[in-house]
């Protein structure tokens, strides 16, 4: 059910009538009060495509559960932030102060989450976000945040490991979007790649909305691989221009979680064949739950789900499990977040996962290669790294004491620990 303001008003009026029936009716009404989930997403502007996938993933989950979690009805209130920080703040205020939501799903972009982070903490608002800003579950943690996707750097550690150890890539150039997500992706890659004996020759940063990658492609030198830390539809543009400049096949192409998202496969051409990427979700993962999810999502939207849709489906699963643990109660926000972070799944659409003490996910990271299949392109899973944490195999204390990855800095040395972190 997509809740519009009108529907919400009707239910408020309904509740008013119920309340006027007298004290006898009230306790039953309180128990049946619907749980309100506020969805902060982006439905207009350049980020809208991802935002619409987020909405679809959330709606699919609730539809499958018949809008009932742990015996309580669920109302979903969808808000469009417009993809800007001030909009995110206004809409978060609307959800919290006017709609009195019990939790927030979203927002989408890191800069949106950063803009409302202190507000969410102030209002003790359980928040299940996709926004990948590393620090919010590590150095400057938000105690009410639950992240079922990954930090920006989380999938880059296994990618670097795979590149250095299995693909025997020695030298790479990187190209990434010129904003925090890109810095953290490239920094994460470098952290492990350096340790494993690899070298980053050049780091190229392209503006988020660049129409032309030619000047960047021209700077790519004689290296074994190119690491692509681009988001949105940028990877599609980049690869097309890369191929049209006659570069196809010259380097191993390696990408982060957004660079070869399953939802982008329909837009890639043959130039993307062989592109290897790391992602905490893959539509081709052959768990039973995932097969059902992909089938249902494809039926609902006509498209393959990628990380955006999958994360919000997972957020739904986490919420449901937490509500079972609290007996459907949402009033004690701290207890609710604690229950969310304590959830642990033996299987899900991304395989088994649980959360670390900061509320960030620990689970599979899939290495995929884009292959041609009959109808188009698919991401074939070539290796699964299980139980990947945001801290990889580093010492957590040391990790927390080092500064976050920056645009031009070299990451501080952190010895990898074969036994794993936590």
């Amino acid at each position, binding site marked *: 059910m997509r809740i519009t303001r009108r529907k919400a008003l009707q239910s408020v009026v309904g509740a008013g009538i119920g309340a006027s029936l007298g004290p006898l009716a009230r306790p039953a009404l309180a128990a049946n009060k619907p749980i309100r989930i506020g969805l902060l997403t982006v439905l207009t502007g350049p980020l809208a495509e991802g935002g619409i996938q987020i909405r679809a993933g959330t709606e699919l989950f609730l539809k499958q559960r018949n809008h009932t979690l742990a015996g309580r009805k669920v109302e979903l209130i969808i*808000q469009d932030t417009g993809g800007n920080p001030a909009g995110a703040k206004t809409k978060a205020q609307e959800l919290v102060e006017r709609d009195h939501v019990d939790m927030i799903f979203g927002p989408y972009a890191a800069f949106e989450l950063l803009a409302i982070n202190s507000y969410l903490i102030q209002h003790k608002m359980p928040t299940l976000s996709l926004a990948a800003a590393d620090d919010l579950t590590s150095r400057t943690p938000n105690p009410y945040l639950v992240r079922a996707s990954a930090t920006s750097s989380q999938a880059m550690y296994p990618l670097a490991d795979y590149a250095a150890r299995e693909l025997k890539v020695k030298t790479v150039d990187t190209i990434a979007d*010129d904003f925090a997500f890109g810095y953290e992706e490239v920094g994460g890659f470098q952290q492990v790649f350096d340790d494993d004996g690899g070298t980053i020759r050049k780091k190229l940063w392209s503006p988020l909305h660049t129409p032309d990658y030619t000047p960047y492609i021209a700077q790519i030198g004689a290296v074994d691989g190119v690491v692509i830390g681009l988001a949105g539809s940028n990877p599609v543009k980049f690869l097309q221009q890369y191929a049209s400049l006659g570069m196809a096949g010259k380097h191993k192409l390696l990408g982060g979680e957004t660079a070869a998202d399953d939802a982008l496969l329909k837009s890639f051409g043959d130039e993307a064949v062989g592109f290897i990427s790391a992602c905490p979700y893959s539509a081709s993962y052959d768990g039973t739950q995932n097969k059902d999810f992909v089938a249902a999502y494809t039926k609902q939207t006509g498209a393959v789900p990628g990380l955006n849709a999958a994360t919000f489906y997972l957020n739904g699963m986490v919420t449901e499990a937490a509500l079972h643990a609290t007996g459907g109660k949402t009033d004690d926000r701290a207890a609710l977040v604690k229950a969310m972070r304590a959830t642990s799944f033996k299987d899900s659409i991304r395989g088994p996962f649980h959360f670390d003490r900061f509320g960030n996910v620990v689970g599979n990271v899939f290495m995929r290669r884009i292959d041609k299949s009959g109808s188009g392109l698919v991401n074939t899973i070539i290796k699964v790294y299980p139980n990947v944490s945001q801290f990889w195999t580093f010492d957590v204390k040391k990790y927390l004491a080092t500064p976050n990855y920056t645009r031009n800095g070299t990451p501080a040395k952190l010895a990898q620990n074969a036994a794993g972190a936590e």
Partner: protein
Amino acid sequence: MKPLAIAAGLAALAALPLWMPGGSYDVNIASQVMIWAVFALGLNVLVGYAGLVSLGQAGLFGFACYVAAWLVAAGTAQWIAAIAAIGFTLVLSAVFAVLALRGTGISFLMITLTLGEIVWGIAQRWVSLTGGDNGISVSTRPAPFGISLDTATPFFYATFAMFVVMLGLVWRFVHSPLGVALRGTRDQPRRMGALGYNVWLIRFLGFLVSGFAAAVAGLFFFYYNEFASPYVLSLTTSAEVVLMVIAGGAATLLGPIVGAALVLGMQDVVSSYVAHWNLMLGAIFVAIILFMPEGLVPGLARLARRPGAAPAAPRPGAFGRTPS
């Protein structure tokens, strides 16, 4: 009659936290409308009264926002941060003005656009100073005279006080001899020059007034959001505030306020009900251009006087034209 109407309007606005149905959320929206209205009032000095359309105004607005955010985040006292934000933004306005006032019309528009984009680029790229795309966030609003502005209603009254003062200042400026001279430079710059007025200086002072309003609005925008990000400096912000002025009615005192309420109303209120609010906003702008090209406020006033009357021919040298 007119002062009475203004007083009644202000009184209704002042009582707003008492009668708004949505509680603190609605009060917050009203505060935001006043902040944007002050920003638009300032720009209107340029667009409406000087005939100079600036597309770099977000550079000034956002600069004040950043200076305050940076200083507060660094631990500077709020009042020092406020004065510095306004002071530095005035200096930046003067720099903008010196560069942009080498031309009028399209060249003025393009130079201001470029300057605004430079400020945006610095905020985006000078990550060590500005936090880049992640921006700067703080978690405190100022507490003048020991009154905390953390909740919606006190913040509303602080913003209301600022709004009334700025409205008064802009009114006073527009009706001062200098303001009249500014309109002269819009309509007849060569004649003004021949009469011995320093056209450049008058425009320069007009630019400073406009920059001052942008600085004050930017400061309050920072207080409201407790956050500065490159988005406030973007061309979208500059264009939005120009639209507020033009839609509401350039060269009127009430127009920019109505324009700000219109744009924010669509963006924050209507967007909760209608998915395609952008489309609706666009349609409204088209309707305004078609049926009341002079803007909502003068347009509605015309319709109220003589229903069905055709819009008057644009005045010579009205906004957007290159004065001869």
